[in-house]
């Protein structure tokens, strides 16, 4: 069995998670403070991939970044970057597709912290950054872990969107979920089963770890 699709999937999930963590933390913090109409619209856009068919998102990304059209053409001409049918295209699609899984838990957790925590820190002379890193972030650890694992696990399971923008190029865009589909198409059920079992096991271990960790971190209000 070719293990490359598994490594490619893990690489894609790791890069997507790191990028989304870097983007998600400041954006979720900003979104958690106040509610302007602009923030509401942005939040709705970020949430769209949760309900949109992945093939629709993939189709529009394919159109947008195709070298024959606007943005894709400009990127190709100016920076010689091609997103369609490339690994960076998978990363871009995954970042957009998994964004609500990173943003949602972090934003909700930040909103649930009493505003007096930030105020207390500010009145001690601490900057917004110090308050974020020393007070807010340490107090949303369970949600942060949930966000990281959900993002990673969700990226592992992407299919429609990566197929649309990446296709099925071995060692480049052929991730595990596509390898499963490809094996089934070729009636090679044992290979499909092997890929599926590996994906199932990784996801199960990740999700169960979060649940066990959070069981000790979170207390029921009725306890």
């Amino acid at each position: 069995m070719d293990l490359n699709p598994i490594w490619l999937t893990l690489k894609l999930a790791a890069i997507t998670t790191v990028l989304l963590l870097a983007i998600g933390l400041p954006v979720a913090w900003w979104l958690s403070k106040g509610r302007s109409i602009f923030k509401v619209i942005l939040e709705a856009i970020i949430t769209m991939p949760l309900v949109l068919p992945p093939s629709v998102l993939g189709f529009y990304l394919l159109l947008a970044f195709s070298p024959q059209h606007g943005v894709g053409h400009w990127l190709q001409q100016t920076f010689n970057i091609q997103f369609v049918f490339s690994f960076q295209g998978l990363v871009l699609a995954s970042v957009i597709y998994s964004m609500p899984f990173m943003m949602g838990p972090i934003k909700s957790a930040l909103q649930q912290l009493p505003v007096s925590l930030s105020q207390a820190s500010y009145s001690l002379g601490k900057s917004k950054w110090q308050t974020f890193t020393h007070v807010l972030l340490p107090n949303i650890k369970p949600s942060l872990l949930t966000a990281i694992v959900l993002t990673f696990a969700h990226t592992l399971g992407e299919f429609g969107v990566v197929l649309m923008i990446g296709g099925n190029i071995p060692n480049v865009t052929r991730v595990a979920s596509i390898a499963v589909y490809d094996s089934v198409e070729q009636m090679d059920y044992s290979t499909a089963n092997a890929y599926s079992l590996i994906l199932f096991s990784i996801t199960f271990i990740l999700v169960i770890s979060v649940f066990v960790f959070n069981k000790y971190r979170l207390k029921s209000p009725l306890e």
Partner: protein
Amino acid sequence: MIKIDIEKKLKAYQGTQVLKIATQFETGSITKIYGPSGAGKTTFLKIIAGFVQSEKGIITVDGLTWLDTGSKINLPPQKRMAGFVFQDYALFPNMTVQQHLGYASKDTGWIKRLLAIGKLETLTTHKPEYLSGGQQQRLAILRVLAIKPKLLLMDEPFSALDPDMKAELIGELKQVFKELGTTVLIVSHNPQELDGLTTEQLLISH
């Protein structure tokens, strides 16, 4: 000298009401602020600290302008550094008693003294969830004292303390306020509990 002249609309069940206060406090004075629930006592403290914005107002502290809506001057809470004891304590769940004080100040000698004042020396490694209500409230007071504030705003600071502990702590605080020259404003639903500590009083009513 602290001069305050503010105007803030408050949303209430009966409709909008206006919190309008023009007053001044001598440096080093300790003032109790009392009045009916919903009159705006906590909001008044929060406007001074910079947590809540007033529509109109001027606040000057020892000649320095903290707020002047006419000139669009509005110092952030970090620049004002008014010590604030919150009604809900606002302790940081991730920090121990020692870490709370260490976050506020690096002066180890001062921290040691504060721990003795609050009788929390044996609880330095405890996080807030393992402290009683009274211990949490004392920690909230010690945390703001750690920055040696020139202005201290206290919102129901003794509500969870038993009478003996309250009397002892008030005696210690009186001494600390005098040493630091701190001007103190204390909101209380029970003004009698502050007898012997405060020198001035301010009524905030509808």
